[in-house]
């Protein structure tokens, strides 16, 4: 036990002391914070410009569409009004070339062409200096749509004030997830959270599993492993490595989640202070029980995969060979990721159920299913049991490969040799 502890301590402290760890742990949340704060700020930048209305409107519709648009274009008290030029359809080309000159000279920002097609609901054209500004174009499009709608309604003899009201309607779709236990928070939020959690589990397992792999190769390459295995039984060494690196992972995740949570909390005040509109990020509704299960799946999934990664490390002598030898393990890990969307769309489908039972995909798929839908506890329990069994098997096989492989410096073993390693070790 003292030896196991010594190995865990070395794995943990050496990694936590490294510059990389400190960098990643500190800058992870900074990156996360930037992801939460920058998009609204960028959206602020893409808002329509103040002199949006400083344009020429060439109205060939003969239905007063130009007037309506001019009245609805957002503008400040100081910025110029749009100039409306009502033209006959056949003189539109001449009017357009005039307007082009005006824009080129810099008198106006751009011109908008309205014709019979526009009224039919098909198209309008805009040319101007700000044609590539997403914010401006969206503002004009919105006004255009509403105005066309209002004109058409007026043509149907709907009261013009009522027509404007109807055109301005903008219903929002609020979504809410329903489960067997009733309301369970916003469906969209849970879907995103489910996806996020599955992906996070996948990333963490790969990240820390590869760390174990590299650690084993380093010990082999520096030949320090022989001294260590002369003092520590290989099983203890393997366990210490996996647990030590796992502890590093958990430390990092706790740091990330804590700061991530805090950043999410202070995000709204910060954005308000910067003048951007923001609403609090809704947190997914996860019960404490589910949270514990989530952590359990992470730990088991990590143990399963990192033991396999350790075995791969013991089989090879350098990182290039490791990439190749690790492919089967990584494929096992990627397989559930390929099905993420399928499971997300229909978390109760047979595919989803099977994937959340298979031990190699369960640690990623089951937590996601639990967040996006309601999984019976019995099913969760069976899945955990399966993963536990798989962990036991993976550790058993890995320990044997590890014991033999650690002192093998020749070429990579063939599958047949590998089988012999597994059988021969005691």
């Amino acid at each position, binding site marked *: 036990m003292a030896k196991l502890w010594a190995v865990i301590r*070395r794995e943990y*402290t050496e990694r936590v002391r490294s510059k990389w760890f400190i960098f990643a742990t500190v800058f992870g949340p900074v990156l996360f914070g930037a992801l939460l704060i920058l998009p609204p700020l960028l959206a602020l930048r893409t808002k329509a410009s103040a002199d949006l209305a400083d344009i020429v409107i060439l109205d060939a519709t003969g239905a007063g569409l130009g007037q309506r648009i001019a009245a609805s274009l957002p503008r400040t008290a100081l910025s110029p009004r749009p100039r409306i030029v009502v033209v006959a359809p056949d003189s539109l080309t001449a009017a357009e070339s005039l307007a082009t000159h005006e824009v080129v000279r810099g008198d106006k920002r751009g011109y908008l062409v309205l014709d019979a097609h526009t009224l039919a609901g098909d198209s309008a054209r805009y040319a101007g200096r700000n044609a590539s500004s997403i914010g401006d174009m969206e503002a004009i499009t919105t006004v255009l749509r509403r105005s066309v709608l209002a004109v058409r309604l007026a043509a149907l003899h709907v009261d013009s004030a009522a027509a404007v009201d109807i055109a301005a309607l903008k219903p929002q779709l609020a979504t809410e997830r329903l489960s067997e236990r009733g309301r369970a928070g916003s469906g969209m939020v849970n879907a995103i959270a489910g996806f996020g959690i599955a992906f996070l589990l996948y990333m963490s397992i790969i990240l820390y599993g590869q760390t174990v792999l590299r650690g084993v190769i380093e010990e082999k390459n*520096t030949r320090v492993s*022989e*001294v260590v295995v002369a003092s520590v039984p290989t099983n203890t060494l393997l366990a210490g490595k996996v647990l030590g690196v796992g502890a590093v992972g958990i430390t990092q995740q706790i740091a990330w989640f804590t700061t991530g949570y805090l950043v999410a909390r202070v995000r709204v005040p910060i954005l308000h202070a910067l003048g951007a509109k923001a609403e609090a990020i809704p947190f997914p509704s996860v019960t404490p029980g589910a949270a514990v299960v989530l952590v359990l799946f992470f730990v088991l999934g990590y143990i399963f995969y990192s033991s396999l990664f350790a075995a791969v490390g013991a089989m090879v002598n350098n990182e290039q060979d490791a990439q190749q030898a690790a492919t089967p393990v990584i494929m096992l890990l990627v397989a559930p990721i390929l099905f993420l969307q399928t499971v997300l769309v229909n978390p109760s489908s047979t595919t989803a159920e099977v994937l959340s039972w298979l031990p190699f995909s369960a640690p990623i798929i089951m937590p996601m299913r639990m967040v996006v839908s309601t999984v019976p506890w019995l099913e969760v329990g069976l899945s955990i049991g399966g993963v536990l069994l798989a962990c036991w098997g993976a550790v058993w096989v890995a320990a044997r490969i590890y014991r033999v492989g650690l002192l093998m410096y020749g070429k990579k073993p063939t599958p047949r*040799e590998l089988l012999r390693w597994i059988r021969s070790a005691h």
Partner: protein
Amino acid sequence: MHPTGDTSAISITRVTKRFSAHTAVRDLSLTVPRGAVYGLLGPNGAGKTTTIRMLLDIMEPDEGSITIFGRPHTERGITDLIGYLPEERGLYKKMQVRRVLRFLAAIKGVPGKEADRRITSWLERLGLRTPDRDWGLAKVDELSRGMQQKVQFIGTLLHDPQLVILDEPFSGLDPINAQSLKDIMVDLRKEGRTVLFSTHLMESAERLCDSICIIAHGEKVLDGGVAEVKARHAGRFVAVAFNGNGAETAAAVLNDRALIARADDSNRTLEIQLAEGADPQQLLRRLVESGASIARFELVQPSLHRIFLDAVGATGVEEGITGHG
């Protein structure tokens, strides 16, 4: 854990280890007396490292048994009594020297405070901690190769092992480090510890060892105390020197296979190994009769190097053998 009353430090009984393609160790038995410096000699590929790895329970013998201080070598805690320096040496490169040593002590069960005290004293003893510079605070890869070797010795000895096993300890050492290692080995013996080391350098073995075992092709060729082994071969070796062209005059005698098994011409002196059944008197008489002028005729103790070549030669000398060191 204290050693039992058994007087052997290591006892290997009829051990065999097979790999897929070949048998590395075949039916090997040997006993290392407690408190001795014991040399495991043999050409490269003779099975020395495999034997040592089995001692340390890194590999499992297919047949046979091993006891260390009278206990089965797989017993819990036995490895804590052993200090091991493998042939392929290495440390965690990015770790601070002190932290590596603390780790190596910890996996042998030495508590942190005690380890720190011993580390300081060892670093000072081997000149890695002077008033000017404390290499203990440097990272391993900032040290020169020689200094890393010293750190590795310290790691081997930090837990005050009763039994020290060194696999090819002199390979890759410069003469100064080799000497400090020899000094350490002599000190260890004075302190009553047992040292087993493997080597193919016969001169080191001859000067350091109390007992030896020569193995080749995984099999024991001979073993015993160095003096005893030499005595066993005494009387079979003669050093002869001639005046003038005496060697030519005596050529017929020197080429007589019934009398001389082998003659090593080291320019001024011929080292002669007598053939089976021949005796030195007979050789002397024949040389005198040949009329050659004899400057020296002396019965000599064979060097371990000679015995080694002789013994291993009997089973076929292998490539990679180097007698001088």
